[in-house]
């Protein structure tokens, strides 16, 4: 993976109002081009605030954010919003248009794209998320997963380099969740997009390239999924739920089954178990 720094956060602190405490305190990290970064943490850990700062929906009181080497300020915010697309939690509350195609076009209209190009981009991005046959559909006839895919189409129509999923799958059923994640995964593979997924679903985070754990507005840990899930008890103390295979490995170990480590995926765990006899 290329290690080009796409976003640099330098010593960010942020509070919503003077009387409330800091939502974020001295957070610094980089986001690299083409990676899938998962930001995890329980409610109030500052992970969603972080997303809003990246997109210039709020500005930090201290510290600086650079996207593609450009400093995020009141002036550059519109440029940066073109580079960073966001998909929010509630599928209904981000659907602006009266039909699917109108909604995808909304972002393009805002950025003053000429109509001929709009038609092309709307078609292209809806094909990418496999929603092309729903062009004229109204939002209340779509499932949550379909609405989120339309939201993703609206984001990629603007050709951003980063897509932020702000709890984008948390209101979906398992099928919708899989649809959305699969779509994002394809975009990342085929279009070299950088994905930042903010989530409290650790199953989702397992699939990321890198995980950042947030706690009480501070960066708690940073590492690969393997490293993070070895933390085990620590995660539970942060009221994060550990993924099922990890939990199972732990319980098996307690029962005296010898395992080399805690496994992140069911396949790995199964493979270890059925070959364990030979390794003795």
């Amino acid at each position, binding site marked *: 993976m290329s290690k080009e720094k796409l976003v640099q956060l330098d010593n960010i602190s942020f509070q919503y109002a003077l009387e409330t405490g800091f939502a974020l305190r001295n957070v610094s990290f980089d986001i690299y081009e083409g990676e899938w970064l998962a930001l995890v943490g329980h409610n109030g850990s500052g992970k969603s605030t972080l997303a*809003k700062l990246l*997109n210039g*929906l709020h500005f930090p009181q201290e510290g600086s954010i650079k996207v593609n080497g450009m400093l995020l300020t009141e002036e550059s915010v*519109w440029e940066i*919003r*073109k580079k960073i*697309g*966001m998909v*929010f939690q*509630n599928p*209904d*509350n*981000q*659907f*602006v*248009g*009266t039909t699917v*195609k*109108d909604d995808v*076009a*909304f*972002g*393009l*209209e*805002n*950025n*003053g*794209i*000429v*109509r001929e190009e*709009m*038609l092309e981009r*709307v078609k292209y991005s809806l094909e990418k998320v496999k929603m092309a046959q729903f062009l004229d559909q*109204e*939002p*209340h006839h779509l499932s949550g997963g379909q609405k989120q895919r339309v939201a993703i189409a*609206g*984001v990629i129509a*603007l050709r951003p380099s980063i897509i932020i999923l702000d709890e984008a799958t948390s209101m979906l059923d398992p099928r919708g969740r899989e649809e959305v994640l699969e779509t994002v995964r394809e975009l990342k593979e085929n279009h070299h997009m950088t994905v930042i997924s903010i989530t409290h679903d650790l199953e989702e985070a397992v699939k990321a390239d890198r995980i950042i754990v947030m706690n009480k507005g501070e960066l708690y840990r940073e590492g690969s999924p393997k490293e993070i899930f070895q933390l085990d008890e620590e995660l539970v103390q942060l009221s994060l739920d550990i993924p099922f295979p990890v939990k199972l490995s732990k319980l098996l170990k307690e029962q005296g089954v010898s395992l080399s480590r805690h496994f992140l995926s069911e396949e790995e765990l199964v493979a270890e178990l059925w070959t364990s006899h030979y390794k003795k």
Partner: protein
Amino acid sequence: MMEKMIFGRYVPAQSLIHRMDPRSKLVIIFLFVCIVFIANNSLTYGLLAIYTLVMISLSKVPFRFIISGLKPVLWLVLFTLLLHLFLTKEGELLFQAGWFSIYEEGLRQGIFISLRFFLLILMTSILTLTTTPIEITDGLENLLHPLNKVKFPVHELALMMSISLRFIPTLMQETDKIMKAQTARGVDFSSGPIKDRVKAIIPLLIPLFVNSFKRAEELATAMEARGYRGGEGRTKYRQLSWGIKDTSMLVFLGILTALLVLFRT
């Protein structure tokens, strides 16, 4: 139910009237409302009626849709008719039974005024039956565009209308959900004295309001994240196209107006 009231009105088809530019339809309706007042005898009212019938047949909307749209206002038309029958006491006496009497002028006025009402309602229902709400919004935005010069927020108004159109079904679904949730908790919406039923609406409206505020805030954030910053520098995806059919329809209406002026007494 509400959804039917607002969206069920539109009857999809490919008629001439359906394909007309919403702007020309709006202009024609507006002018029609004005010229209806020119008519003052049977010939001119006849012309207006023929014009309306031609429009209905061109729109290819099944007659029962038009009738169902008329039902709620039928009482109003009837009421106007009766009012004129009883209260206008001019011209020859046609009929008398005790205190009750009908005069010629009353009958004439009654029929004309209710016919006027009737035609206006027919024409406006043709508009809503052949034009989607969003087309009407686009048409209005375009027609009102010159008002921008006097700082009238045309774009904002149109956006507001389109967002409310988009959220009506969503809020209907939500109302339904809250109603079920409150029914499960023992709120009775459908029986009891009026006073109790009105009270029962409160636990429905409060959650609906709270949620709407939440929705509004989230939608605003999502819109900003997608680069919305007011009407300036925005391009449009939906396009209106004025064609020969629109011009000819306006010319046709012009001819009708000339005929009305010619034949009025």
